[in-house]
């Protein structure tokens, strides 16, 4: 067989470039150590800004895995005498970490029994009327599934399904706008959908956790009340942009129907385990919606209860958990949360906020717009969670300085804008997974991504002013 697979991944090598990046980071920290403390900021705050810059550089350039940068941030703080090890590691142990663990166990069970595939195919079947509605179906299906499980898993599920359909339709890579839109719909659908619930992306529980540190509780349902309108407006508009940018050239969707039909047949009848997982998932979501705001229940308690029920019903075992939980995101999350904690406790966040506000016009609307634009720019060049981790402490500090902007408003803007990584392949795993199909080019992604980002910035800004501030009173 002429085809050889290399299923072992290439490790990041210690290249000169990576060594240079590390030396540069240490140089930054050293410079921060040497410079005198600026007015209004003590040693800890000054060094914390150095750590923030170091984290941003490492998350953008990625000389080491994102998760290892998370660990690095945690150990830097006690090593540089910013905070004690006790304080740093205590800030890591909050309920959002266990919410993530519980959510990953549930997502693992969904994937193990193929419930996600059944849901995906079930959704797609409802959009077989025309090529246009089919591409809309892909976006909606991806978005809906990203409400229930992490967006990266949804992208990894949908790209092979959509590729199979395109192959069955004899759609040549790069040769068809239908192929292009179908794959872009996967990438954008997952990203937009991940804004909708706390499960979609790790940046969402990270935001909830940062808010909890300042005494603001956001329940699962409250998050959805704020975020779902953004999803519902952004999805059709971004889909419309895709249609305008790449007019679909085919009329017949018959082969796609057949392929979906065949895949549904391959799935067979729904199994007992799938029913059990679906029921537990529905039960957990109901609990999240109804009870997550109560102190003695909380997001994590419900997530872990859902996980426990999966064990008790024998739908998942420990081996599955070991295989399915991405510990990397937990560590990345840990680094992010301690970064936010450090920025707040040392006063570095407030100091940066004061500095920014003393140099710009204090118009709250302009500041809200600036927060969205900066977050979107940053999330396009680094990990979504990393971008949110870097900007949240500053955003929260800015909110505490301006009476018209509440911390919740600022945090929600950063969290949701952090998911709008549409322009580059490297911006988010969903883009990279869809790009690997070969059906669209980097230029295609950038072309629609820029417009989609501009539209979403506008949507987010309008929703923040008219809905969050106007109706919800944020």
């Amino acid at each position, binding site marked *: 067989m002429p085809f050889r697979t290399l299923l072992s991944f290439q490790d990041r090598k210690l290249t000169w470039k990576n060594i240079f990046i590390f030396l540069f980071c240490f140089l930054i920290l050293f410079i921060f150590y040497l410079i005198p403390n600026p007015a209004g900021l003590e040693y800890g705050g000054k060094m914390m800004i150095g750590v923030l810059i170091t984290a941003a550089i490492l998350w953008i350039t990625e000389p080491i895995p994102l998760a290892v940068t998370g660990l690095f941030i945690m150990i830097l703080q006690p090593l540089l005498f910013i905070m004690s090890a006790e304080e740093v590691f205590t800030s890591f142990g909050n309920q959002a970490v266990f919410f993530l663990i519980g959510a990953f166990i549930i997502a693992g069970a969904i994937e193990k029994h193929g419930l996600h595939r059944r849901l995906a195919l079930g959704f797609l079947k409802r959009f077989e009327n025309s090529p246009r509605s089919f591409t809309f179906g892909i976006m909606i299906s991806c978005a809906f599934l990203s409400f229930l499980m992490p967006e990266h898993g949804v992208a990894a599920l949908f790209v092979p399904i959509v590729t199979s359909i395109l192959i069955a339709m*004899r*759609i040549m*890579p790069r040769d068809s706008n239908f192929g292009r839109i179908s794959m872009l719909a996967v990438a954008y659908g997952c990203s937009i959908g991940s804004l909708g619930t706390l499960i979609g992306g790790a940046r969402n529980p990270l935001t909830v956790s940062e808010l909890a540190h300042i005494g603001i509780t956001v329940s699962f349902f409250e998050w959805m009340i704020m975020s779902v309108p953004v999803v519902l407006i952004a999805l059709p508009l971004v889909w419309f942009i895709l249609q305008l940018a790449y007019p679909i050239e085919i009329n017949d969707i018959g082969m796609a129907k057949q392929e979906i039909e065949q895949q549904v047949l391959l799935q067979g009848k729904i199994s007992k385990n799938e029913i059990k997982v679906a029921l537990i998932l529905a039960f957990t979501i109901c609990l999240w919606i109804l009870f997550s705001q109560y102190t003695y229940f909380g997001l994590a308690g419900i997530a872990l209860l859902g996980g426990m029920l999966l064990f008790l019903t024998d739908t998942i075992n420990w081996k599955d958990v070991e295989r399915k939980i991405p510990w990397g995101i937990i560590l990345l999350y840990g680094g992010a949360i301690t970064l936010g904690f450090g920025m707040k406790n040392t006063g570095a966040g407030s100091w940066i906020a004061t500095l920014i506000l003393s140099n710009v016009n204090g118009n709250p609307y302009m500041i809200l717009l600036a927060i969205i634009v900066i977050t979107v720019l940053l999330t396009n060049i680094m990990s979504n969670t990393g971008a949110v981790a870097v900007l949240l402490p500053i955003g929260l500090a800015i909110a505490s300085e301006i009476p018209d902007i509440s911390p919740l408003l600022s945090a929600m803007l950063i969290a949701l804008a952090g998911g709008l990584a549409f322009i580059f392949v490297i911006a988010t795993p969903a883009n*990279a997974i869809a790009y*690997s199909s070969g059906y669209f080019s980097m230029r295609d992604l950038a072309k629609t991504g820029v417009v989609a980002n501009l539209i979403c910035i506008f949507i987010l800004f309008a929703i923040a002013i008219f809905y969050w501030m106007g109706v919800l009173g944020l």
Partner: protein
Amino acid sequence: MFKNILVPVSSEFYSKQVVYRSIQLAEHFKSTVTLLYIIEEKTIDQTERLTDAHRAYYDRIETQKDLMRKQQLTATQIVFDFASHLFEQKGLRFHHLIQYGEFSDVILDEIQKKKYDFVIMGYEKECMLHYRLLDELSVPIWIEINKSHEPRILGICTNLAPNQLAPMLSKEISKALDWELLLYYIMDRRDPVAVDTYGIRSSEKTLDELDAERQRFIEKMKEQKINIETVVGGLEQEIMRKARKYDPSIIILGREQKRKGALGLPYGNIKRKLMEKCKYSLLFIN
């Protein structure tokens, strides 16, 4: 002339135009064409690198397997199927194979394994191509740009390249494709050296010496009924100027040996610059 043509296509970038072009050339030269579908390692690695914090190891393995399986299917059921049909219609010999790896490495590896004498490939600036491929290949490489131009060939000879192949090949391809042939000798006075048939640069020459060399070459070509016009100026600039003027479908250039800068680094890789800036197809003869 070209018995075995290699047509590498990448899972990252596929253009039907390269298949059409290979058929056109294979028909004339009675060549065997091998379509090599390369599952681009870098895109798979990029996906892996970006998801390593977000997805568990086993899930990533599954995704990688899934993506590669689908790319294999795309290759066999779409790319090869489409090409086989066209080659069969024309009664041409056609092989196909799939390889996994870095695009440039796989091509070099394949050329070492089998005796190919011509390579045709597509190009897109954003794709992950190692430009060293252009210098390391020992056979002519045709870079097909998917845009239509006048049926014209712009053949370039210069004091900075061995010129024994470029005029002949330009003439041959002009005959094969029935395209008009325009041949120019670009005398680069800013880099006043001559390059011999082995690609070795001479010591610096006076302008008179350079001109005499040029004259000798043009006379020699005239004997073979090949007319070449002379242009004086920078190699890259003059190529672009002439290309803009004549809108050729292909520019043919020999192995240029531009002056090296400090530490032996080239001042600028002409091939790379031409590929990135040029909207015309290119044929580099090494």
